[in-house]
């Protein structure tokens, strides 16, 4: 028997393979295609206090081995989620992690508060890649002070395990990691999408109505790996690796460098079975290599110390 269970501080997961926020809906959309109870966890679409319509279309564009999205903050709102989506999801016996967002520190705190009162949620994941409307739209996650404020405000309102999801669009992600750890996060997840844009030379217009968007998918994997490395080697809290993971090999790369779990995002769209295949793939890899516990593989990268 091979052990796949991982423990991320206060959060215990049956296996390290989760699905990423915004790429798995509210958890049940794919349930006719795969047995979602086998997943390490489901991170649902980012929720705000009130329902939001999101950005105008077109909202997605394909790039070379990548996808840019500018969905904006479209979601059903935290109340609708708790009333209509969560009860059905909880029947599936899979850890449910709720991704939260807001345009003000207060909104984050309030959403965190409301979700803490709901039963059955395994953890909150704070998406700090949102524009702060009060300070002119600067992204919370790119400014250490603002990131600190958001995380500590949510921390005060919840005793749920707290994950903070970092954006890669900063000079020093290690420093941001330190800040959110100080603010009280239990776990860090990284990365969110990479700032990007695309234009059409024939219409001479941006391909996204919002002009900019976030790049995800295989193209960003090497970038994500480096950012996760920086986080893992700067702070002591457990880290969840995200970015371009499409195969069990990709997943193992993040675990190898020290992430204790991973999330599958864009790959769900291409093959909804990806995350289940990754779990199977990890299991057989460990078997082939006579490793009886995934925790023995996590962080086992060997560096040439001669250098």
């Amino acid at each position: 028997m091979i052990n796949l269970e991982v423990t991320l501080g206060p959060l215990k997961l049956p296996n390290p393979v989760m699905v990423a926020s915004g790429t798995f809906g509210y958890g049940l959309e794919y349930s006719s295609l795969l047995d979602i109870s086998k997943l390490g966890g489901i991170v649902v679409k980012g929720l705000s206090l009130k329902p939001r319509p999101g950005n105008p279309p077109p909202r997605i564009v394909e790039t070379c081995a990548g996808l840019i999205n500018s969905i904006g903050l479209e979601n059903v709102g935290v109340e609708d989620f708790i009333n209509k989506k969560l009860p059905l999801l909880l029947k599936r016996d899979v850890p449910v992690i709720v991704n939260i967002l807001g345009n003000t520190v207060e909104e984050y705190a309030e959403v965190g508060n409301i979700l803490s009162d709901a039963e059955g949620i395994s953890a909150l994941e704070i998406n700090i890649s949102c524009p702060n409307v009060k300070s002119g739209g600067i992204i919370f996650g790119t400014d250490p002070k603002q990131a600190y404020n958001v995380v500590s405000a949510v921390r005060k309102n919840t005793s749920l395990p707290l994950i903070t999801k970092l954006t890669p669009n900063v000079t020093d992600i290690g420093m941001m990691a330190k800040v959110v750890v100080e603010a009280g996060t239990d776990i860090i997840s990284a990365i969110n999408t990479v700032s990007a844009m695309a234009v059409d030379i024939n219409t001479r217009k941006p391909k996204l109505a919002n002009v900019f968007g976030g790049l995800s998918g295989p193209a960003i994997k090497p970038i994500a790996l480096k950012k996760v490395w920086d986080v893992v080697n700067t702070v002591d809290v457990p880290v969840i690796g995200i970015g371009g993971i499409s195969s069990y090999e990709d997943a193992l790369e993040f675990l190898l460098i020290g992430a204790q779990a991973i999330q599958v995002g864009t790959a769900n769209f291409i093959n909804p079975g990806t995350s289940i295949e990754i779990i199977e793939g990890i299991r057989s890899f460990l078997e082939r290599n006579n490793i009886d516990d995934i925790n023995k593989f996590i962080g086992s990268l060997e560096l040439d110390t001669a250098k």
Partner: protein
Amino acid sequence: MPVFQVKAIIIENSQMARDIWRMKIYSPEITKAAYPGQFLMLRVRDELLPLLRRPFSFSTINVSEGIFSILYKVVGHGTRLMTKMLAGESVGVLAPLGRGFSKPPDGTKRVWLLAGGIGIAPFFALLEMLKRDSSKLEISLFYGAATGEELVDCRFFENNNCKVNLCTDDGTCGLHGLITDSVERACSLTILPDFFYSCGPTPMQSKVIEWAKCNGIRGQVSMETYMACGMGVCLGCSISKKFFTGNKNEETNYLRVCREGPVFSIGEEN
């Protein structure tokens, strides 16, 4: 609604007109579950380039043979690669997806099908369904393309008692002009239909919706937007509700083309 993610065998892949191909695929479970107007997401190849699946409407649905087909236009990387696929090879299909066409209301006598370019694709299956359900419907097809060489063979429609009105942008075949011109012209010459189905590029749909509103005709339009998941998950395919209602003052509200559509009703509450 069951959805299947399968590797299915290609039965045929051949060219039908300039840049227009048809692919027949064997998959009894999908064929059985599919409805005209629904679509599928096709994985062009098992690699990371092109990354996303491509959406295509069911063009024909042959339940007894377990075979469906798509009619596709070669426009970019993915569809170019599709033309290289051979009968006997397998292809990844995720289907059936979305809401298809529904039957016209009781009492409907005259139905118009409006097809712009590759928008003709789903009307093969739709016509079959309409004829199966009510052989007495008087059905006309208005079908336009940029040029004559891009029109696919319409004998299937003629053989099914459907009057075919062709038009081309360059006048090489049928009436000279856009399909919406051709529809306008017909309106002034004949009796208006009770119901319509429209499929084609977004600017055409926009005009069709206006025409329908003006003339108080109900119908359904099948929309195309960029899609990543096809399953209501990514929220990438959204279209503004205003597109259908025409009411610019109402609050912004988006509908997922892959889930609430691709077929939307016009002239009713959405």
